[in-house]
C-alpha cells in the first residue's frame, strides 16, 4: 500500500532554476527505496521538501504534490507540519556527530520526541529511550542512556540518532547518506539495522546514497536522479541488472569490481552541470555516448519499459541502450 506518493515535484531557486524538476516517486509501507545520484543531483532537496524543511532562503516548491496517506502535505500549515515531522516522517543524517545536540544526554534527546508527540511522562519516556537503545543495538543501554554524544563512538552515534528518530514511531524514515561517514564494518551493521527495522516495524525507508553497493544490499526499489531530474526507477534487480538509462549504466560501470578487473577504472566523462547551466533537452546528453540531435532539444519523458510493470526511464534511446548493452556483453 502506498504510504507516500510524490508527483511532479519541482523546486526552484531565487533565479527560477528548477533544482528539482518534475520528480515523481512513491514508497510503500515496509519498502526501502534507494534514491541514487551524484552530489548536487537534488536528492537531498527532494527529501527535505517532503518535510517542508528546505535549506536556505529563496528555495520554493513550485507545483507538484506530496501525498502522505493520501493527503497533500504541501497544503498543510506550519502547525500541521509540526505534527507530521518526526511523528509521520522521521529523518536521519549523514553526520551523526553534528546532528546530535552536544549538551543534551542521548537519553533526553530520545525521550523528548516521545514526550512531545505522545505526551509521555518523564519516567515513561526514559524507559522507552532505554528500550530503543537496546533495539538499535547499544550495549548496556541503561547506563548509556545518560551519556552525552561525545561519549559515543561514530557507529553508536548513528544508532543513537536512529533511536531519536524512532522514538516518535514514524511511518517513513528518510535516511540521508546514513553510512557515508562510517567505516565499512559499521556501515554493514547500520544497513542491517535499517533492514531489520523495516521487517519488524513495517517501516518505509527512503535511503539517499551515492553508493550502489549500499543500494544493492539494502533496497527493494531504486530511483536514480541526475541534475534535478529522475532518470530511471524500478525494482532493484531490473535497474541494476538491465539498466535502461545511459547514466545508470555509467554509474554501474563505475563501481570497482572485486574480481580483479584490469586496467583503469571506468568513469563517466565530464562533470555534472551546474544548476545555472542545465542543458536543454536531456540534461545528461553532453556526457552521453549515445546522444543524438533529439536528445539535445527534446526533454525525454519517463516511459515504462514494455513488459516490465514498474521499470521506467527518461531516455529517448532506452530500448537501444539495452540492446547495445547486450551486444557488449553487460
Amino acid at each position, binding site marked *: 500500500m502506498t504510504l507516500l506518493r510524490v508527483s511532479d515535484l519541482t523546486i526552484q531557486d531565487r533565479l527560477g532554476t528548477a533544482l528539482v524538476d518534475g520528480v515523481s516517486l512513491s514508497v510503500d509501507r515496509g519498502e526501502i527505496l534507494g534514491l541514487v545520484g551524484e552530489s548536487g543531483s537534488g536528492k537531498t532537496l527532494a527529501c527535505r521538501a517532503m*518535510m517542508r*524543511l528546505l*535549506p536556505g532562503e529563496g528555495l520554493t516548491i513550485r507545483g507538484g504534490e506530496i501525498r502522505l496517506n493520501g493527503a497533500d502535505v504541501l497544503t498543510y500549515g506550519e502547525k500541521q*507540519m*509540526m*505534527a*507530521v*515531522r*518526526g*511523528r509521520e516522517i*522521521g*529523518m536521519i*543524517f549523514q*553526520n551523526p556527530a*553534528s*546532528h*546530535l*545536540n*552536544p*549538551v*543534551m544526554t542521548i537519553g533526553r534527546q530520545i525521550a*523528548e*520526541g516521545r514526550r*512531545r*508527540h505522545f505526551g509521555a511522562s518523564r519516567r515513561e519516556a526514559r524507559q522507552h529511550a532505554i528500550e530503543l537503545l537496546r533495539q538499535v543495538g547499544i550495549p548496556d543501554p541503561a547506563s548509556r542512556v545518560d551519556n552525552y554524544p561525545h561519549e559515543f563512538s561514530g557507529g553508536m552515534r548513528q544508532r543513537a*540518532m536512529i533511536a*531519536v*528518530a524512532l522514538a*516518535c514511531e514514524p511511518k517513513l524514515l528518510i535516511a540521508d547518506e546514513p553510512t557515508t561517514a562510517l567505516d565499512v564494518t559499521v556501515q554493514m551493521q547500520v544497513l542491517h539495522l535499517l533492514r531489520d527495522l523495516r521487517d519488524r516495524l513495517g517501516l518505509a525507508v527512503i535511503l539517499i546514497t551515492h553508493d550502489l553497493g549500499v543500494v544493492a544490499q539494502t533496497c527493494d526499489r531504486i530511483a536514480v536522479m541526475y541534475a534535478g531530474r529522475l532518470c530511471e526507477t524500478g525494482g532493484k534487480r531490473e535497474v541494476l541488472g538491465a539498466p535502461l538509462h545511459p547514466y545508470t549504466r555509467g554509474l554501474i560501470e563505475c563501481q570497482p569490481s572485486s574480481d580483479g578487473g584490469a586496467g583503469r577504472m571506468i568513469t563517466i566523462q565530464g562533470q555534472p552541470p551546474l544548476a545555472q547551466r542545465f542543458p536543454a533537452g536531456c540534461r545528461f546528453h553532453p556526457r552521453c555516448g549515445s546522444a543524438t540531435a533529439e536528445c539535445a532539444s527534446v526533454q525525454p519523458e519517463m516511459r515504462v519499459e514494455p513488459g516490465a510493470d514498474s521499470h521506467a526511464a527518461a531516455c529517448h534511446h532506452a530500448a537501444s541502450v539495452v540492446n547495445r548493452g547486450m551486444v557488449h556483453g553487460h
Partner: protein
Amino acid sequence: MTATQSVAAIGRRVLPGGNTLTVGIVILAAWVLVALLCPWIAPFDPISQDADATLLPPNPAHPFGTDNFGRDILSRVMWGTRIDLQICFIGVAFPFVLGTIVGAVSGYVGGALDTLLMRLIDIVLAFPFLVLMLAIIAILGPGISSFYIAMAMVGWVSYARLVRSQVLSLKHRDFILAARSLGYSHGRILFFHLLPNALASSIVFAMSDCVLVLLSGASVSYLGLGVQPPVAEWGVMVAEGQGFITTAWWITTFPGLAIVALAMGFSFLADGLGDKLGARP
C-alpha cells in the same frame, strides 16, 4: 573588562599551576561564609554608635579600628558583605536574563526585528555607561532598587550582543535542523536546544560583569544614590570615611580592600571558568 583581564593576568603569574578557578571559588566561598555567619562572628553591632570609641586606630578590640561614630569597621565590613553580594547577584541576574532573551530572539528570528533591536543596543551603547545609569537613577530617585532597575536597563546590551552572536552561528548547525525534523516548535528549539549551547560565554562574561556591577554599586552608593546610610555597605563606608582619610586611613582602606578582594574572587572565577568552558567573552 580590562580590570578583570589585568587581575587575571596577575593571577596567572602568581599561580603557575593556572588553577585560577579553584582560587576564585575559595575566595567567593569565604565571602559567602562571612555573609551567612556575620550575626555570629561580627564582634559588634554594625550600626550601634559608641561615643567613647570614635576614630580608634586598629587595636585588639577593634582589629580594623572604628569610625567617627565609634562603629566597629570590622563588623561593618562583615555585614556589608551581605549587601554587596546581593548587589552582585541581582545586579547581574536581571541584565543576564533580559539580555539573553532579547539576544536569543533577535538572533534566531533575524530580519527587521533583529535590525530594530540591534539599533536599540547601539543607542544604549552610545551613552557612557555610568552617565546613563546615574541619569536613570536620578529619574527614579535614589535607593538600591533604583540601582537594580538602572543596571538592568543599561547592562542587558552586553549580554544581548554576546548571545545574539552565538545564536547566529548556532542556528544553522545540523542539530537544529535535526530538532526541526522532529517537529519541535521554534520556541522550544531556541530555548531548550540552542540556548544551552550558547550560554557558556555569557556565563563567563557574567562572572567578570560581577566585578563591574560591584564597582558600579559601590560608586553609586559613594555618590549617595544607591544604598543609604547608616546601612553598612562598602561603597557607603568609603564615602563616609573620605573626610578622615588623612587622620583615620582605616575607615576607607578596609572596605576598599574588601571590594578588591571580592572583585578578585569573581575575576579568578571568570578566568578559570573561561578556561574550563573554552569560552572567552
